[in-house]
């Protein structure tokens, strides 16, 4: 188990490293992007400012030297955030708890709701409860979270004023306010995923519900509820855990971007959206590297958790 976790984390580090090279190449060296132009004030700059930028960032040095220097300053936190609010690394780490609250809450709601509804479906399979829930799940799945977030924010928090319009309160300061600020973002991001999970989990549970050990459990006199909870659910959840893990480790560069912008949450998604709009190269590369590290770290964490749940996955082999 520890061996697997080590291998998985090492693979994650390699992925993050390659991603940092790609980000560097994309924003620093491809011929159409002239860093001197953008670092020298873009359209407001002139030859003098561009020469100054070339001097300051060492743009005449060999590319590997520039890469190492840029990465070193990114990891040291020397890169300034775009509206001169200090070290980008600190700004990023201040914003991370907001995003983790959003993603963790949405993930728990999505998986809890999905599994609970799928269990109801399986207990009442082929009856109206089943049909109602699967139809509702398809409907929830078909509303993109972008639209759901926009509608919830615009009507529930802005027009009707039932929830705060923007901002974030840390959990430790005031749990009630924390939940109040995050409830709508959670719903907006979780509902489409919950709809998808109802289908996935229901399919997996229906595959196990006719197995021999389930019949044995029924034969020894367990109630249908206990059969599903103790015997069907444990085996039926394995494929779902995988999908859930992939979805929510990807969330750090996925739905958080627009959900945080819409709900005015000061997390890494909103920070990324602001920074990209600034066309300021070093912060953009820095954010790309930070986000790459966060995404690969959480993917690795999820894979380790999944392997802990399902020992068959622990054998060595290609894993990304």
């Amino acid at each position, binding site marked *: 188990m520890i061996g697997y976790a080590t291998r998985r984390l090492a693979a994650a580090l390699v*992925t993050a490293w*390659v*991603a940092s090279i*790609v*980000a560097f190449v*994309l*924003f620093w060296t*491809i011929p*159409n*992007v*002239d860093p001197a*132009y*953008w670092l020298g004030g873009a359209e407001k700059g002139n030859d003098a400012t561009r020469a100054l930028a070339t001097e300051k960032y060492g743009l005449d040095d060999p590319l590997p030297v520039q890469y190492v220097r840029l990465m070193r300053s990114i990891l040291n936190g020397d890169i300034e955030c775009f509206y001169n609010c200090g070290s980008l690394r600190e700004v990023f780490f201040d914003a991370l708890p907001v995003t983790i609250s959003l993603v963790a809450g949405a993930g728990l709601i999505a998986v809890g709701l999905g599994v609970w509804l799928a269990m109801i479906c399986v207990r009442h399979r082929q009856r109206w409860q089943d049909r109602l829930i699967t139809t509702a799940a398809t*409907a929830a*799945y*078909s*509303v*993109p*979270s*972008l*639209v759901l977030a*926009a*509608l919830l*924010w*615009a*009507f529930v928090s*802005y*027009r009707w004023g039932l929830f705060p319009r923007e901002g974030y309160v840390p959990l430790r300061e005031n749990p009630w306010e924390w939940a109040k600020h995050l409830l709508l973002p959670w719903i907006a991001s979780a509902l*489409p*995923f919950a*709809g*998808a999970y109802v289908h*996935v989990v229901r399919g997996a549970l229906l595959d196990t519900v006719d197995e021999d050990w389930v019949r044995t459990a029924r034969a020894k006199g367990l109630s249908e509820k206990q059969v599903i909870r103790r015997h069907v659910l444990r085996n039926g959840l394995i494929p779902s855990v995988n*999908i859930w893990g*992939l*979805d929510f480790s*990807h*969330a*750090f*560069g*996925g*739905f958080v*971007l*627009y959900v945080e*912008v*819409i709900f005015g949450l000061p997390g890494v998604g909103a920070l*990324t*959206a602001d920074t*990209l*709009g600034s*066309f300021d190269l070093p912060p*953009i590369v820095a954010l*790309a590297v930070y*986000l*790459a590290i966060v*995404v*690969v770290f959480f*993917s690795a964490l999820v894979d380790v958790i999944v392997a802990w749940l399902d020992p068959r996955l622990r054998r060595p082999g290609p894993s*990304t």
Partner: protein
Amino acid sequence: MAGTTPSENHLTDRTVIDGRSTNIVSLDGIPIGPTWHGRYLLGADENGRDLAVRLLYGTRTTLMIGGGAVLLTLLLSVPLAFAAGYLGGRTDALISRLLDLLWSFPALLVGVLLSTAISLNGAQIGPITIRSGSKLIPLVVIGLVYVPYMTRPLRGQVMALRGQPFIEAARAGGMRPVSVMVSELLPHLWTTVIVVSTLLFVNAVVLEAALSFLGAGVNPPEPSLGVLIAAGLNDAVLSPHLLLAPSIALIVIVLSLSGLAEGLRRALDPRGALDLGLVREP
């Protein structure tokens, strides 16, 4: 509906509603809501532009970007899947590693970063020049982002087919690899291509909306569903129609396209044999 273009302003015009002449944009800057008549069917926006016209043109842009992106994905992934699955060995290892790398990052993040990189100064791909602000940027970006999602299932299928006797027979008959791929392997892949393409089309439409919403896709005033949703968001208190119309349009498109994708999957792959390895990112 006719008589105006999607980006033509009618800030000071008047129109007749219920027999009374009304300012299209009131003196407080609030545009009229839906009239349910030919002109201003769904109302106007704060510049007096006809929302129904903008919505139609925007939907066209979104669908064209989505369709073009899926075509680009196909053009790139079919050769890649053939190379990886048929040639195997180092080619396979290299292609699979690269695609896994792209796969391990979320599509929206890669899309936003790529789109920003291209928007900085445009890009040149062979004979095609993409200028900053062009609608080709989201098309190319979305097309690239989804390459692993298409290549993975195709590669798996090519690998499974490679060992079949009819391929061996074709090779024994002296067919060159390219001919084997085109005339022997390709006909077996159509099912996967059609099913995955429709699924990706839904994804591409939603991704376009998200990219444009974040300012990394279609640029205003050019309308697209993402642009219209972003614009409608801030006026939702006084003019809810500006947000509702594009949102409902996007929901209807996604609902009907996923219905189509699901129907095609059931019709072409009734036993669920295809390993799509893909869940739509909602």
